[in-house]
């Protein structure tokens, strides 16, 4: 008699699905429900329909927060992904002892973000901090700033910290990908007279394109989800110069008790992040299709020649 397998797949998947539903689906559904109400977290809920969404879209600070987070993402694409790629290329050239370089560069990734934020708050402190003190000692007093208090510098200062932390993370991803590049291809390029820089940009980087696309996707979606660095270092200040959607909605929920409004902002943010992810995936799929079509054409041309 054959055992019944109708139920067993569901039973095996049920625990993981239950956790997923409890930790993701149910909170998402309840957040959506809260977003349709005016609620302070403990009193009566008043149904307001989409009014919270209308208010959020019209909220100039919420609009500014999206501008700030997009700027943050664009800068971190450079200071995290690009710098990570360059560091990976440099580390690849180290014949012996590269592991120590990799450990050193990766170490900031292992630090809790709150610790990083506190550490760099000290570095950036305008009165006692390391950066202004160093600039003063070097005779560059005119370069000192209130780094986290100046609207011109606060966001960039946070981006630098982000780069310091995550460049090592992307370096690790790219290093692993670069190690997979076939040595014959590299040797062939060398024999053709290509220099190391040309080999890196024209041979290795195109081959690890998939890893770069994944890194860009991680950077973009991760950027939208940033919170702890901004919260600890500036909490959206000075005067909303570093306000991002997450800090603003946390303030709405946990400070002014606007749970419904904060929930609406959270839903909008989720939609934006999902849309960004889908766009990137769609672009990647389009590029893959074009690449495959290009390779088919080349193969046909080769056959025709032969």
């Amino acid at each position: 008699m054959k055992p019944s397998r109708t139920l067993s797949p569901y039973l095996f998947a049920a625990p993981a699905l239950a956790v997923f539903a409890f930790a993701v689906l149910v909170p998402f559904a309840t957040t959506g429900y809260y977003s349709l109400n005016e609620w302070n977290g403990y009193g009566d809920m008043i149904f307001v329909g989409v009014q919270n969404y209308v208010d959020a879209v019209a909220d100039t600070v919420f609009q500014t927060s999206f501008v700030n987070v997009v700027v943050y993402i664009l800068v971190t694409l450079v200071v995290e992904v690009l710098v990570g790629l360059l560091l990976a290329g440099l580390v690849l050239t180290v014949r012996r002892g590269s592991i120590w370089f990799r450990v050193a560069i990766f170490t900031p990734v292992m630090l809790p973000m709150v610790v990083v934020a506190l550490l760099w708050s000290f570095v950036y402190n305008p009165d006692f901090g390391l950066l202004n003190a160093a600039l003063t000692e070097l005779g560059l007093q005119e370069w000192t700033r209130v780094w986290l208090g100046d609207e011109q510098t606060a966001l960039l200062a946070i981006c630098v910290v982000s780069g310091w932390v995550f460049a090592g993370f992307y370096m690790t991803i790219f290093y692993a990908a670069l190690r997979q590049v076939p040595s014959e291809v590299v040797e062939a390029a060398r024999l053709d007279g290509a220099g190391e820089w040309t080999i890196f940009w024209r041979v290795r980087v195109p081959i690890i394109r998939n890893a770069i696309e994944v890194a860009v996707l991680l950077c973009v979606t991760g950027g939208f989800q940033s919170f702890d660095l901004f919260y600890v270092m500036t909490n959206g200040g000075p005067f909303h110069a570093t306000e991002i959607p997450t800090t603003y909605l946390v303030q709405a929920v946990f400070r002014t008790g606007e749970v419904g409004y904060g929930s609406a902002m959270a839903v909008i943010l989720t939609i934006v992040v999902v849309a960004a992810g889908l766009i990137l995936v769609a672009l990647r799929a389009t590029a893959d299709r074009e690449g495959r079509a290009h390779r088919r054409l080349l193969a046909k041309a080769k056959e025709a020649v032969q």
Partner: protein
Amino acid sequence: MNRKWIAAAALALTGAMTVGLAGCAGGSSGGGDDKTLRIAMGSPGEAQIAVWESIAEEFEAANEGWKVDLNFQDDDMYQTIGLPNLLNGRNAPDIYFEWVGNRLLQRNADGFAADLTEQVESGALADVLDPELYTTTTVDDKILMVPHIADVSNVIWYNVDMLAEHDIDPPETWEDLLKACDTLSAAGVVPIASGNKDFWAAGNWLGHLVSRVVGADAYDEALSGEASFDTPEWKQAFGYIEELHEHGCVNESANAIDDNEGAQLFFQEKAAMHAIGSWLVSWAIDEAPDLTFDFVNLPAMPDEVDADSVEGVITGHVVNAKSSPEKIEKAAEFLAMLHTPENTEKFVGAEAVPVDATVSEIIDERTVRLNSLLGEAAVVISPADTGYDLEVADAFYRALAEVMAGRTSADEAVTQLAQQVE
């Protein structure tokens, strides 16, 4: 295939809901019928925590079968979402710390503040405190809070030696203050240190300043939403903050550093003055024991309405109205125990001076003078963030911070503030 997906999703959701409901079972607010007295507050520091724990032991020894559960939360968390969550959760506190003002009114409106009138008149709290002390904690003829500590929330602290070194007298008028700023700035010293990253530090001080100019009544009406900010009087008041910026009175980093860092500028003698509340006394004694410092109330403002007004905040403890009658009685007994002479002395030793403390050798004489300042003031105003709606207070503090930083003019700030809150 579709049926399989539906079955999997249904199974997952059922499992999740079961786990969720099981976790949430037990109901929400209410003190419970058990013999545990639950007390919640923001963290008052190690020294005071020790006093609370000793009082808890004393209560348990005197009430067989009863236990006391003390819950100390992070201050910022408690002041915002922490307390409401506790009050609406399982095992809500029976006694909780609160500020007089809008917050107490809100707790009363939400049904979380027990009427202690009977306890005060003839129950466990009879003759514990001077009846006058309940004036500010009485709402609609109901005593809702037992006051514990009264703080002056803004004075100008000054470094005695630094002012003397620059031949400056403690400023008593606005003109004195601006002259002091000019002299100190020229000498490379920060005139007034402020750490206003969270907006309340300078907000308290500048709020007091503008209230002097517009008058306590106008201050109260505007923050309560009963009058507009967009008036010539408010613009005039904010104009004085512009003058502070023009004279370089406040450290450039004020809006980038928090209150701890602002105080450090004063403790490390990089700033000659620091505008903050009475809690600086014990803090400075701990952090900078060699610092010679004293205070003046906010200097007299030109054309001020309420001369010599003081900004103060009274805090105390509220009994949860949703606790059982037995627990409300026990809560009143506990609060009475808090105010015995022995425990009052313990709090004084922990650098918290209760409202019923008498002058003694262990209380710093600056604290005694501050208590007199508060007690004798004809007009006392509340800081915006503890006395009024938090959203209005935040907008008010942001407007003050913007003018202090020179980012916005007084007129623009007042107009924008009015648009935001009205």
